[in-house]
C-alpha cells in the first residue's frame, strides 16, 4: 500500500499482540509514525502461542508470522520491546509519552539468533512464559525460534555476571560479539504523540487462582487450555505428540471442563466468550492427532454465537467423537495411575456421576492483563467493574480520555477476528486525530 503522506504526529500503541500489531500496520500503511510498545522481549502476544484458530482451523503462527516480520521492517513502525509506558503528559493531539526500555544485554541488530549463548549459559530452570511455563530455559533466552525481533536476551534477574560478576560464558562464546553487559535501562521520551491505543490484551485465570478444586497443579494430568495448546502444537514442548505429563502416555479419553473461574461468584462474574469454541477446536485437533480419541465436554451453556459457530460444534459432535455433557463439576480426584476422576452432576438426569479420563483440560477464564491497573493509573483512563478498559457501548474503541483508544481483549473477552476488526477501528479513530479529521 502506498503511504498517503508524511505526518509529524505519531501514535503510541501499547501491547503488541494481534490487536496492537493490526492497528500498527493499519496506521503505518497510512503513513503515520507508530511506536509499538511491548512488555515482553518479543511481539505476537497470545495468538503466537496458539496452535490453530477457530472455526477455520488455520495454523495460528502461520497467519501471524508474516504480520510480525512486516511490523519489524515497516518503515513507519518503531518497535520497543521489553518496554513499558511510564508517564504521559499533554492532551489529545499532543501527548508526551515516557517509555521505560529495559536493557536486553544483547545488541538487537548484531545478534544472529544462533543460540550459542543459551547453550553455554550454566543457568537452567527458568520457565518460558511462551510455552505456558511447561519448558525451562537458561538465562540467555528467546521465547520461540521465530520470535520477532530475532535476538536473544539475557534475564537480568538470574544472570550470574549481572548479579555476581562471575561466569561471562555467553560473552566468551558469542561469535558475533552481540552480548553487551554495559546496556542500561533507559527512558525514551516521545513528543508530539497524537493518539494512544491501549491493546494490552488478556491474562488467564490460572495467573491469579490456584484452581485447587480442579486439582490443577496438584495432579499432572490436569492442564489448562493454554497448556494443551502448547502441548499439542508442533513447535511446542512435545513436538506435537500429545502425551500426559505424568507418564508420557498418549491420552485416549480427554475431558474438557468449561467455565473454569468464569460465571461464578468465586471467580469472574462474566462469560469468557471464546471457551466453548476453542474447546471444540482443541478437541478436534486432538482427534486429528489420534483417531481413537473420545472427548467429553462438560458445559453449563453452549455459548457459540457467531457465523458458522453452531455448525462447528455440530461437526465436532458428529465427526470428531465429542460428547457434550450439560453438567456442573463437583471436584476431581485421581486414581492410582494418576487418571483424573471427575465427579459431576448431570443436568439432564440430575444424577451425581463419575467419569474417569486420561487427561483433563480446564477452559480457564480470560481476565484483564495484570499490567492494566498500573497502566490505567499512568494513562488516567477508567476501568469498568470487571477491570477491563471502560468504553461507551456506542463508541466501543474510545476510553474515558479523549485521544486514547482501546481494542481487543483489553476491552472485553473476544476472539481473534473481532480483535482484528476492533484494532482497525481504533487505528481509524487514531488516524482521524493525526490527519485532523
Amino acid at each position, binding site marked *: 500500500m502506498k503511504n498517503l503522506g508524511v505526518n509529524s504526529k505519531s501514535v503510541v500503541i501499547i501491547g503488541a499482540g494481534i490487536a496492537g500489531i493490526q492497528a500498527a500496520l493499519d496506521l503505518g500503511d497510512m503513513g503515520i509514525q507508530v511506536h509499538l510498545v511491548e512488555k515482553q522481549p518479543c511481539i505476537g502476544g497470545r495468538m503466537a502461542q496458539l496452535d490453530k484458530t477457530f472455526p477455520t482451523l488455520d495454523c495460528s503462527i502461520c497467519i501471524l508470522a508474516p504480520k510480525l516480520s512486516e511490523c519489524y521492517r515497516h518503515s513507519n513502525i518503531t518497535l520497543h520491546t521489553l518496554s513499558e509506558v511510564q508517564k504521559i503528559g499533554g492532551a489529545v493531539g499532543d501527548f508526551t509519552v515516557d517509555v521505560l526500555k529495559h536493557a536486553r544485554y544483547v545488541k538487537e541488530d548484531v545478534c544472529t539468533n544462533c543460540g550459542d549463548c543459551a547453550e553455554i549459559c*550454566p*543457568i*537452567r530452570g527458568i520457565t518460558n512464559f511462551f510455552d505456558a511455563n511447561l519448558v525451562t530455559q537458561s538465562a540467555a533466552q528467546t521465547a520461540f525460534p521465530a520470535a520477532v525481533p530475532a535476538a536473544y536476551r539475557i534475564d537480568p534477574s538470574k544472570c*550470574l*555476571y549481572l548479579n*555476581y560478576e562471575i*561466569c561471562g560464558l555467553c*560473552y566468551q562464546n558469542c561469535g558475533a560479539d552481540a552480548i553487551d553487559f554495559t546496556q542500561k535501562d533507559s527512558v525514551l521520551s516521545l513528543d508530539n504523540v497524537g493518539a494512544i491505543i491501549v491493546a494490552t490484551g488478556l491474562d488467564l485465570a490460572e495467573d491469579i487462582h490456584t484452581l485447587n478444586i480442579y486439582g490443577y497443579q496438584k495432579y499432572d494430568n490436569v492442564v489448562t487450555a493454554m497448556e494443551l495448546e502448547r502441548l499439542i502444537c508442533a513447535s511446542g*514442548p512435545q513436538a506435537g505428540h500429545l502425551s500426559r505429563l505424568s507418564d508420557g502416555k498418549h491420552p485416549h479419553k480427554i475431558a474438557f471442563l468449561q467455565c473454569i473461574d468464569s460465571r461464578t461468584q468465586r471467580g469472574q462474574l462474566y462469560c469468557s466468550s471464546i471457551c466453548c469454541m476453542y474447546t471444540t477446536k482443541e478437541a478436534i485437533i486432538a482427534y486429528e492427532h489420534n483417531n481413537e480419541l473420545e472427548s467429553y465436554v462438560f458445559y453449563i451453556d453452549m455459548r457459540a454465537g457467531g457465523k458458522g459457530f453452531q455448525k462447528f460444534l455440530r461437526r465436532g459432535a458428529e465427526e470428531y467423537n465429542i460428547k457434550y455433557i450439560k453438567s456442573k463439576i463437583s471436584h476431581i480426584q485421581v486414581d492410582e495411575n494418576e487418571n483424573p476422576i471427575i465427579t459431576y452432576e448431570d443436568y439432564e438426569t440430575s444424577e451425581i456421576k463419575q467419569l474417569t479420563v486420561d487427561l483433563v483440560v480446564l477452559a480457564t477464564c480470560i481476565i484483564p492483563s495484570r499490567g492494566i491497573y498500573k497502566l490505567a493509573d499512568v494513562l488516567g483512563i477508567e476501568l469498568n467493574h470487571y477491570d477491563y478498559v471502560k468504553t461507551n457501548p456506542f463508541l466501543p474503541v474510545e476510553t474515558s480520555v479523549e485521544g486514547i483508544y482501546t481494542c481487543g481483549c483489553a476491552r472485553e473477552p473476544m476472539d481473534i477476528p473481532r480483535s482484528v476488526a476492533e484494532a482497525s477501528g481504533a487505528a481509524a479513530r487514531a488516524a482521524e486525530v493525526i490527519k485532523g479529521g
Partner: protein
Amino acid sequence: MTEVKPKKTVLKDVKIFKNLEDEIIKTNKCCACGACVAYCSSQSFDVIKMEGYTPKFIADANVDNCKECGLCYYICPQTEPLMRQINEEYRIKDELGYIQDVVAAKTTDEKIKEMGQDGGLVTTLLTYLFDKNKIDAAIVSEYDENLRPIPKIIYNKEELLKSSGTRYSISSNILPLKDLYSIAEEIVEKQHQIYDINQIRMAFVGTPCQCRAVRKMQLLDISPTHVIKYVFGLFCMENFDYEKLFQLVKKETNEDPTNIAKMNIKKNFFITNKENKVYEVELKKFDDAVRNHCHECDEFTSRFADISFGGSGAVQQNSMVVIRTEKGQDLIRNVIIAGYINKFTPKKSTIDEWKASKIDLFRRMTNNKIKKSK
C-alpha cells in the same frame, strides 16, 4: 592437540579452578562432594575430573580449556562466596540453623526396619516419593563389595533397600549428576517418558557439606542441580578416610572390609561381621582416620537440607527428624498421613519440653564438634 584461541572475557579478578586447587584442595579442605566436577562436566568443558576423592585437571593439556568462569570456586561448599546469601535464604543464624519442627519417627515397613539404620526414615521417605511419583530418581550412596561407599542413582524403590543404612566414609554424591542425559535415558527406560531433560525430578541424600554445595548451586540456578527437588541431610559428626578407616578396622578387629556386615556409631564404634560377631571399639581409636576437612566443619545437623535425619537423641528404634523448610514439613505430614511412618510421642514430658531437650542436645553435640575441630 586442540587449537588454543585467545580468550575474550568480561571478568575481572575472578577466582578460578587454579585458586580452588591452591586454597582448598591442596590444603586438604576439599570435602570431595564433586560439585565442581559435576558442574564443569555437565557443561562439557572437558577440564577437570575426580581422581579418587580429589578434583583435578584431566591433564596438563586441559588447563587451557578452562573457561575461567569461576563457578567451581563459587559453588565449592568450602569457600566463602555465596555463604552469606545461602545463610539468608535458609534463615540460618546459629550453629543449628532454622528449625521448623523436631519429630522422632520410625518406618512401618518391616523390610526397611531390618535393613536401615535407626528408624529407616530416609529409605521410607524415598519409597513414598517413588510411590507417589513425586521423583524420577534419587541420589544416594551404596557400598561396593569392599564396603567403599559409592554414589548411586536409583530409579525405583526396589533398588532402594541396598542403600539403606549409614556409611562412615565419604562418597562424592553430587558427581553422578554430571551426565544428566544418561540419567534421562535411564528414566525413560525404567520409569516413564519425559519430554524435557530439565523436567527431571530428583531427591538428594547427603552430608552437611554436600547439602551446602547443592544449595550454593541452587542459589545460582545452575546446571545440573536444578533437577534436585528434595534435599535430605544427614547428621554428621565426622567422616572417615576409606583407606585409613579400614587399616584401623583391620588392626582392631582383624576383619577385612569384605567380611563386615554392618557398622554403627553410637557411643562407640560397633562393627558386625558376616558371622554376626559384634566388635565394640572406642571411637577415639579411629581419630587418625577422620578426614581433614571435617576438622574445619561447624555443621552437625545439616542446616541446608529440607529435612535432616539422624540417630542422635532418638530412642526405641526411632530416627530424629529436623524439619527446616515448608516443603519438608509438607512431606513429613503427608508421609505420616499415608501411614508410611509412625510418629513418636514422648510419654514422660510434654511435647514442648521434649523438643527443647532435643534441640539442646543437638546444640551441645554441634558445639562438641566445633570444639573438637579447633
